[in-house]
């Protein structure tokens, strides 16, 4: 007789293609109860969330804008996790980058963006590195767990920013706790007219490509991955484990810092204590959904941006509480992650 059995081994291509669809369907079923309770139709909710944004040019532009910071933090987390260094501190490192960018953008007296913007990026990268330095050193020299130190430093950074903006940096014009506005030369050019897509998007893509090249094609990259996969063996092979962990952690912090620069230079034009809406934490999600690969990170950043953009209109169009967006995003994330497992199985016919 002939029976089917499920076993390990990569799934056929056609099946992988429909996995995202499966994820959406399952999520749909799971959250439709909530949507109905809120008095809306699940179908229209998902249409607003996943389809509608793609049908409007402005919304498509918004998606690029929203993907920019989470792509950067996602890449930052990817680098660190690849080294087996669990940097949950991208949030704080982002703020560090923002501070540096705002400082350069307000202090450096120049008319030339060509001079100003690169300096902001460099300063932001360095600031992010510096904020990532302490936990990295503690990890490499004292074996102090980085998850908790980076996590805690996020809170510390928020207080620091708040102290800065309530104190020496308070905007003399509005008196609101935000830095003075950065000079015109420091404001990122807008790429798509009547949209907020700014230079940061290009920066993010370039960073992503560079990191992709480094991780897959360079000695440093493979050494970092070796350390991430098996520290003892990596050490046996003569790789300076501590040094590689340190480097990966610092690069990660620097890239997260760039996300801060991009938000200050491209969105706000000043430093504020609300620079990020959890971009650092979303970076962890982007990186893991992307399976710690750069192409994966790019895709998941775009996808999360799509859902984020959809959520903005959805709550108004259907008038349901705005939090429905968060719920559906979270559900999509978890279900999506779970359905990715299907990649690893195939159904075989045996007799």
């Amino acid at each position: 007789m002939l029976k089917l059995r499920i076993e390990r081994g990569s799934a056929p291509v056609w099946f992988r293609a429909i996995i995202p669809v499966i994820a959406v369907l399952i999520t749909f079923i799971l959250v439709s109860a909530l949507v109905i309770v809120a008095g809306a139709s699940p179908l229209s909710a998902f249409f607003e969330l996943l389809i509608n944004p793609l049908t409007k040019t402005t919304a498509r532009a918004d998606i690029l804008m929203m993907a920019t910071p989470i792509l950067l933090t996602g890449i930052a987390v990817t680098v660190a996790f690849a080294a087996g260094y669990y940097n949950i501190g991208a949030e704080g490192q982002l703020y560090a980058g923002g501070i540096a960018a705002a400082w350069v953008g307000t202090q450096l007296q120049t008319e030339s963006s060509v001079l100003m913007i690169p300096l902001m990026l460099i300063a932001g990268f360095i600031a992010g590195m510096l904020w990532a330095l302490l936990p990295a050193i503690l990890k490499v020299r004292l074996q102090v767990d980085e998850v908790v130190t980076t996590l805690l430093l996020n809170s510390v950074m928020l207080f620091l920013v708040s102290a800065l903006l309530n104190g020496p940096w308070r905007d003399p014009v509005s008196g609101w706790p935000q830095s003075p506005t950065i000079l015109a030369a420091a404001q990122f050019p807008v790429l798509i007219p009547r949209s907020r897509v700014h230079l940061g998007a290009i920066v993010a893509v370039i960073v992503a490509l560079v990191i992709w090249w480094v991780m897959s094609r360079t000695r440093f990259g493979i050494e970092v991955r070796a350390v991430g996969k098996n520290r003892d063996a990596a050490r046996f092979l003569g790789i300076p484990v501590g040094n590689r962990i340190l480097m990966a952690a610092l690069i990660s912090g620097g890239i997260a810092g760039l996300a801060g620069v991009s938000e200050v230079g491209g969105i706000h034009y000043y430093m504020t204590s609300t620079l990020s809406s959890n971009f650092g934490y979303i970076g962890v999600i982007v990186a893991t959904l992307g399976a710690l690969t750069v192409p994966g990170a790019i895709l998941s950043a775009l996808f999360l941006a799509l859902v984020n953009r959809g959520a903005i209109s959805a709550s108004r169009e259907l008038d349901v509480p705005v939090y429905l967006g968060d719920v559906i995003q979270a559900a999509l994330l978890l279900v999506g992650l779970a359905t990715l497992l299907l990649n690893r199985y195939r159904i075989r016919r045996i007799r």
Partner: protein
Amino acid sequence: QDEEPLVVFAAYATPIEEPWDGVIHVALQAAADEGRIEYEYQDEIGYSGDMEIVLREVAEETAPDVIFGDAFGNEEAVRRVARDYPDIAFVFGSGLGPAQPNLSVFDNWIHEPAYLSGLIAGSVTESGIVGVVGGYPVPEVNRIVNAFIQGVTEVNEEAEVRVTFINSWFDPAAAQEAAQAQVDAGADILFAERFGVIDVAAENELWAFGNMSDQNELAPETVITGPVWDMGPTIDFVLDQVEAGSYTGLDLKDFSMMAYGGASLAPLYGFEQTLDADLLKMVREREQQITDGLFRVNIDEATPNGAVVPENTTIGG
């Protein structure tokens, strides 16, 4: 109104549970209930670029007559969009000035009733220590606290006012602990800029002042009164202007002050009897002087004592 209602949209950066935006939402909801406007809103838009997206989409797709909201933390975005849609009236809470042709600004200018509350606090305190618990030291909070302090010290020179900020618009548990710390330090009357403080006053059988809305029903034995903000006058004025087609960008400050009924001292309820008559008389007289424009309460937006911060050395700009 016989002509059909105006279409009004409101964009709030915080959730509408937050008292500041709450006041705007309540007033607009009231106007909607009267049938004067069709009201839609979106809240918890946040501060990371979404405000502009929401405003543009609404302006494009529903093109309402008026858009209310708070621009704090989103000033540039709001002003950019307002510029692009001159036919829509933008009326936003803001720390900056109005912009022609179509951006009006307002704010919670309730320092006057805060000052009056201070007069009461300064008179009734026995320990001579008055406690204040606030969210963040932003101008909107500072000037209320400073006016309150002005009132306290006017009637009671040696009274000291202790101010604590919990660095959050919410977290009532932290507010409670902050208030308790004040009580432990000897404060016998509390000003509750945030929620959580009144409970502590009640537990310790002390008196407290609410803020932003009439909070007497939270603890009738405890809440004497407090500054109340009412967006009604502001909204009415704007709607009239728009209906008359005479709308322009203005600073609507006055409509949030006592003279126009935008600010007031919450009713005293039982405390009409409890409080010393002379004190009440003095407060009522001062209240009258203010509404008649005969008395000015200082507007001081510097961070008050109790949370001392270094001298305002500002960078750049």
